């Protein structure tokens, strides 16, 4: 195990102490079968961060979690609510840990770019997208992040390097290598990151993205969130690898398997990959073992236990998620882990953590309230933005 970096505040030992305890707790809970297999401690980058940045990571996790819980509540209860969602709760530590290692503000030609998936809200919030405007977009409002054109599966905000949800499985990874190619060509030290699920492994694009990134030594990071399922199938139906990271290693790409429930473990792996990319060392692959709590997808009018709602998937013919599996993963909740770690490290105390959570809840409530008041779109604006200038003709109008 490599030497730890201590930040001089005297917290180092306590932090390491916690890591040992957390490891034990995992073992005690009997996760050997389903829990993440991590590569062990990668580095102590996270322990070096300022208290502010550490608190921000917890805050981000909480913002994602409460945004999502609020959304689920609305779907179940509010007849005016219109937004659908692909749920991210359970996976918050992945987006948060990765984005914490990136450059998220500054001029567009200096920030790092993130390509997201059909499950974008966590990535978006972690990268710095404004929650209010994102929520308005999801609710199809004209003042939404993308003017009401996008909706959940297609949100984007290049201003913070959030290049967009990509609802198609596969193409985004290849497109992201193109951004990395542009960085290398123009001598920039920016990094392109793509998130993808275990479902992306089987796409032909997986090979394309990794092989070209490797051959051209691109500043590209593939973050594979292995939440065990792609829609209604376990990943063992589509991949021969227990660790999909092994597939990346076959290309000669440095790959890490990390515990996706532990934001600091994710951060450590991301930091290592980002440093490598900026230094011209080429691509990296990170497989985060994680789990999604809710259903694949949800929509307004949902009823608990029914399709598109929460829990068991009735369409799941070939395989489905056992109740016990869901409960087992909930024992290693990313919110709890981050919170306990920071308390253990002395960054926060329990009342401080509670206050932070209350703050976040208030912010989320405000974002939903703001979004719900936003104006609807003007019908004829659908003809704009096809090309950079002008509108296309409304051919159907008599």
């Amino acid at each position: 195990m490599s030497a730890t970096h201590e930040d001089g505040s005297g917290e180092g030992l306590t932090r390491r102490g916690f890591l040992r305890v957390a490891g034990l707790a995992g073992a005690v809970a009997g996760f050997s079968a389903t829990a993440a297999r991590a590569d062990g401690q990668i580095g102590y980058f996270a322990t070096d961060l300022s208290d502010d940045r550490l608190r921000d990571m917890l805050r981000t996790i909480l913002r994602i979690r409460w945004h999502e819980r609020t959304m689920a509540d609305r779907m179940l209860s509010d007849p005016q609510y219109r937004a659908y969602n692909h749920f991210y709760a359970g996976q918050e530590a992945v987006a948060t840990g990765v984005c914490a290692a990136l450059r998220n503000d500054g001029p567009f030609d200096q920030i790092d770019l993130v390509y997201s998936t059909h499950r974008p809200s966590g990535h978006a919030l972690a990268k710095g997208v404004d929650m209010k405007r994102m929520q308005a977009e999801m609710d199809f409002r004209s003042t939404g992040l993308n003017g009401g054109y996008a909706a959940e599966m297609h949100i984007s905000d290049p201003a913070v390097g959030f290049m967009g949800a990509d609802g198609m499985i596969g193409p985004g990874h290849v497109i992201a290598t193109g951004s990395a190619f542009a960085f290398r060509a123009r001598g920039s030290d920016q990094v392109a990151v793509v998130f993808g699920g275990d479902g992306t492994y089987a796409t032909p694009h997986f090979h394309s993205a990794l092989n070209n990134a490797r051959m051209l030594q691109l500043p590209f990071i593939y973050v594979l969130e292995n939440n065990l399922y792609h829609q209604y199938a376990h990943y063992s139906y589509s991949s021969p690898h227990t660790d999909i990271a092994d597939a990346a290693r076959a290309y000669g790409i440095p790959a890490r398997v990390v515990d996706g429930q532990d934001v600091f473990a994710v951060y450590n792996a991301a930091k290592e990959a980002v440093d490598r990319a900026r230094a011209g060392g080429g691509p990296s692959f990170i497989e985060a073992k994680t789990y999604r709590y809710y259903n694949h997808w949800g929509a307004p009018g949902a009823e608990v236990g029914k399709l598109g709602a929460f829990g068991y998937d009735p369409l799941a013919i070939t395989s489905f998620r056992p109740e016990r599996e869901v409960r087992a993963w909930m024992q290693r909740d990313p919110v709890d882990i981050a919170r306990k770690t920071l308390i253990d490290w002395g960054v926060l105390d329990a009342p401080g953590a509670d206050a932070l959570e209350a703050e976040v809840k208030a912010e989320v409530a405000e974002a939903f309230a703001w979004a719900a008041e936003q104006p609807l779109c003007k019908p004829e604006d659908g003809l704009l933005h096809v090309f950079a200038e002008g509108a296309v003709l409304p051919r159907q109008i008599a």
Partner: protein
Amino acid sequence: MTVKTWMYSVLEAVQAEMRADPAMVWIFELTPPVASNAGMPVINLETEFGRKRVVNTGIDENWMASAVLGAGLAGSRAATYIPYQGAGMPFQLIQNHAGKLRHMTGGKASLPIVFVMEMTGQTPGFAGQHSDYEIDSTYMHIPGVRTVIPSTPYDAKGMMHAALRSPDPVVYLYPAGLRMLSEEVPDEPYEVPLDKAAVRQEGTDITLVGSGGGMPDVLEAAAQLGAEGMSVEVIDLRVLKQMDTETLVASVAKTKRLLAVDQTYYTLGPAAEVVARCAENVEGARFRRIAFPDAPPPASPEMFKWMRPDAARIVAAAKTMV
């Protein structure tokens, strides 16, 4: 004869063909080949025929289409159901392989294959990337594939039988918006031909032509116009390749007015071909198209619904012509 949903009617055809031919295979991705219908047995192809013949793959629609082609070439009847999110993925395979192989081999290739392609773009909220109604034109332009687009459960079942029995590759477009449409559908197998349009209603003042997901609005518009005294002939294309020119031309020769309606983009939608064929063959008639504008469908229901040609738009357009 039972009232059945579209989805049930289609799977009933597939089930019957798979029972009759133990070599036939079905490849799906996320839409399990399962359907239930009031008073009818549940159909589940996967449990009935087993996972060697009915396979659920990883996310690789190009493999699904390619595998079906390879199975066909090896002499097995084969079909796949491509979800709308992946409908563009197998384009090259269908355009440059499935559609050309019979001709390129001088007639030697065995191609008893069906590509069921799910289409969206009819429902507000889905937006841009998750809308793919445009593939109707894409698969209609290329040769060597019979591209069909049923609009009723009866046709859907009969055309599925015909497609599975056809020696030619069939692109079977499946407008997802019609999935739960129901009507009386015979329980036994029957065929609806892969080369005939359907005259849904006869009339003398104007010919309305539509297809697939657009038919409910076309029929609704015809009913409204009829109520106002207009004599409307309604044609459901049903087959995009090879388009049934004769039925179209005969109708327009009679009515001298053609209004062709597309749910796909205006430029080079099937309606362009309808107008062009009739304009070449009928002199002195009036021609008009309405379609989705040349813009991706936006997410906002307000924008989307305004852009989609619905019954009200069709009625308004028809009135300017008669």
